[in-house]
């Protein structure tokens, strides 16, 4: 079997008969042709399957690392490429005979890696390309001399390093949850799942309490795909809160569910940070979706508590008999009221779960001034809550309003008898209108029909009201069925007084 010796120091262009087999790694090298198989064809081989007919060249590491492999015999000058060597040889003006590169058929060569532990050391796993084997040797068994400046990646091959620096940091995708992606497709997939996963994972927590089983069936598939991304704190905070909202639709079931939800919401850090200092953010819901929910709701809760100051200031300026906020009366009131945790949810958002003494919080809120700009929805909620307070049945009694007497006004075709009750209200239409408002908002206040004794208006949309078994006696006055309260009695009164001069 013909063997060829390639000496690192001198290369013979003509075939040399001498066959030297050397096994040392530092000396000349060894070439062993593969067992002959089918006749070689000139075609590109599949990767990993070298041409069986090819000549296996095992270059020493020194050879691989060497940069000037091609050496001119005449002057011993070294070149990196064979073509460069040929060009150089022309300059020597060789006689014709010596000019030929004799006989040496370009035999297909494959190269093995000199590193014994490497997979490619085996001739059957030889690589077909000299450059390829060099790069492989550098990458795997070489020192990584090239380092990217932006990131910490190191490379042994200069071309790899160059290619990397070109793209490092140029295209990056960042999800809201903070995860970084270099590929667009993986980013998009993640982003779709990210929010869904965060919500569903929170939903799953709440699901056993209130959601119908169908929800869980839908939720389960969500949990299996990509691992949930690190949900940011705000999302976690608001998710339990947000998930409570869907139950609003099943209004009849709400009260028990609402009571259950606070324990679920407890893990979330109770005071929504934005609430006290920045009610301003109310309308500008720029943070994550979850956060904005909590902001809005928290701030609406805040506004509840600031209404005293608002109206106090309003009416101080208008009417001579100013009114001052009386925090102490809260305490009186609140003592009379049974306080399920759900109450506290609305009273003070900071004590969302635990029934801490509200008055303390109340006083701190009364001093704060509500923000300039509220959304229309927030205003409606505020109005409903303000109006929902009944400030004394005695007030209305004093007016001797009599529901039962029919009105003298025209009846409209759709409204029939129902509207008759309104006649009596005169200016005191505030209460039921605001009750309607709260009903419309789905707030479903405690008012029992009997307590309000409102006209049939209230009977219709029973779905508006949360079915509350007992009449909550807010004032501790033990009021029986009385005429409804003149809630914002100040307002119409204001109109009256302002207009009547």
């Amino acid at each position, binding site marked *: 079997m013909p063997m060829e010796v390639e000496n690192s120091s001198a290369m013979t262009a003509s075939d040399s008969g001498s066959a030297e087999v050397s096994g040392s790694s530092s000396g000349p090298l060894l070439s062993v042709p593969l067992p002959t198989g089918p006749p070689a064809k000139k075609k590109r081989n599949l990767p990993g399957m070298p041409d069986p007919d090819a000549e296996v060249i095992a270059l020493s590491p020194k050879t691989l690392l060497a940069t000037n492999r091609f050496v001119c015999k005449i002057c011993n000058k070294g070149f990196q490429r064979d073509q460069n060597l040929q060009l150089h040889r022309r300059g020597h003006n060789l006689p014709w005979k010596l000019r030929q590169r004799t006989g040496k058929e370009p035999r297909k060569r494959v190269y093995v890696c000199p590193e014994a532990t490497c997979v490619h050391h085996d001739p059957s796993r030889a690589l077909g390309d000299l450059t390829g084997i060099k790069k492989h040797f550098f990458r795997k068994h070489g020192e990584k001399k090239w380092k990217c400046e932006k990131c910490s990646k190191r490379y042994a091959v200069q071309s790899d390093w160059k290619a990397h620096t070109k793209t490092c940091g140029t295209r990056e995708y960042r999800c809201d949850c903070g995860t970084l992606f270099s590929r667009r497709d993986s980013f*998009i997939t993640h982003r*779709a799942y990210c929010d869904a996963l965060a919500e569903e994972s929170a939903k799953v927590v709440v699901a056993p309490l209130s959601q*119908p089983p*169908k929800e869980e069936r*839908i939720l389960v598939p969500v949990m299996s795909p990509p691992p949930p991304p690190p949900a940011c704190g705000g999302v976690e905070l608001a998710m339990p809160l947000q998930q409570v909202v869907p139950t*609003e639709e099943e209004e009849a079931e709400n009260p028990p569910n*609402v*009571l259950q939800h606070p324990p679920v919401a407890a893990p979330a850090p109770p005071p929504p940070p934005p609430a006290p200092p920045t009610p301003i953010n109310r309308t*500008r*819901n720029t943070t994550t979706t979850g956060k904005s929910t909590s902001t*809005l709701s*928290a701030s609406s809760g805040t506004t509840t508590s600031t209404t005293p100051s608002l109206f106090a200031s309003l*009416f101080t300026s208008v009417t001579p008999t100013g*009114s*001052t*906020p*009386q925090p102490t*009366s*809260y305490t009186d009131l609140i003592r009379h009221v049974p306080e399920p945790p*759900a109450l506290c949810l609305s009273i003070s958002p900071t004590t*969302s779960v635990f029934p801490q003494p509200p008055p303390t919080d109340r006083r701190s809120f009364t001093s704060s001034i*509500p*923000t300039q*700009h*509220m*959304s*229309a*929805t927030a*205003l409606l909620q505020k109005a409903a*809550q303000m109006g929902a*307070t009944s*400030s*004394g049945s005695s007030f209305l009694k*004093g*007016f001797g309003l009599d529901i039962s007497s029919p009105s003298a006004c025209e009846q409209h*075709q*759709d*409204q029939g008898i129902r509207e008759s009750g*309104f006649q*009596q209200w*005169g200016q005191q*239409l505030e209460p*039921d*209108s605001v009750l*309607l*408002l709260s009903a*419309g908002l*789905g*707030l*479903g206040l*405690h008012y029992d029909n009997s307590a309000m004794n409102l006209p049939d208006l209230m009977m219709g949309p029973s779905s508006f009201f*949360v079915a509350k078994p007992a009449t909550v006696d*807010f004032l501790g006055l033990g009021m029986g069925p009385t005429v409804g309260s003149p809630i*914002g*009695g100040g*307002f119409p*009164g204001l*109109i*009256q007084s302002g207009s*009547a001069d």
Partner: protein
Amino acid sequence: MTQEENGSSTSTTSSSPLQSFSQMPLSPPPASTAPPPTSPLPSAYLQNLRSDERGLYLIHFLLNCANHVSAGRLDHVSTLLQHISLLSSPDGDAMQRLSAAFSVALARRSLRPFPGLYQTLVGSGCSASAPAVAAARHDFVNLCPFLRLAFAASNQAIVEAMEGEKLVHVIDLGASDPTQWIELLQLLAARPEGPPHLRLTAVSESKEVTNQISVCLTKEAERLDVPFQFNAILTDLNSLDVEKLKVKTGEALAVSSVLSLHLLLGNSNCQIEDFLNALWNLAPKIMVVTEQESNHNSPVLTERFVEALNYYAAVFDCLELTAPRNSVERARVERVLLGEEIKNMIACEGAERKERHERVESWGKRMEAAGFGRVPMGYYGLLHVRRMLQGLNCDGYRVREEKGCFFVCWQDRALFSVSAWRCRRFD
């Protein structure tokens, strides 16, 4: 969190200062013969109000006015409207614009006892032409993603139902916007088994609208190489003859109704039943219904008023955050689209009152009574819509799934519901 207050007594919180109001000397009004207040509140005072205080005043004025309107006390109505006009403005903040829209509706409503005045000033029907409304609807679709999300959800349901079908016939009831069908064409073209032959029948009252839709869609279908055929039926839904829809045997039928089905509730209960029965007889594979999620069909004016106030407050809030105050499109949406809806539902009655929105539960009952079974909107539909939502990069918009229906929400208020139904035969 405010929705928590279902079970809570919010009243305890702010009763204290209002209690003090009860001690304020107020001139007690006699029962029904209160002298009408004549002069308005000092305007100087009103100009100095902060926006939230002004908003609260507006709400109280509006509610009181609604009560007076329903009771027929025009003089009180007039005074209150004066107050409202001082505070509201179609170019102000959300609450001001909302009040402007509602006060116009209330003013119109208060004329109803005087048929002559009503006829002359209010006339019959909408004061805006159908193309103007369609343009406003188009602006709305572009400004706020609600309808686009609803379209996406509907399309997803349709595509899922039409899996494997070669011949798809879609009927668009109350067509006004080609956006939804452009997306459907794209979805169908991207099907792994290739696009089906798509026929679209658009039911609309305006030829201009259907022409515009036709042009847009044919162009898109050519571009996507989807075999497409467009038919227009120029009629309003009330007088739609189902035969005209020309549903052929062998084609898979999908019916889509976007904010249109409620128009049929006006005449009598029977009409919607007949209509749904007729649709059922066509045996559609899927029927997707998008409706406003709010009950604006109560026979009692004040209830309707309050529901509408809450609903449109959310929509106006959304517009406030989405578009600048001087935006022409926003003004068009508020005045032409939403304003007309509000005017119709507050000022009109009987057959004229077309905007009878109802919640999806009521629609569900109707559909089930007509023989339709609910098709849950699907997990992938929800993901698709959520992805779209993230792509839109808007804040405050939510999509929620509940009992198989999608709710497109602003903050926590559901504004539109999307539900899907199939023809249930012999179940």
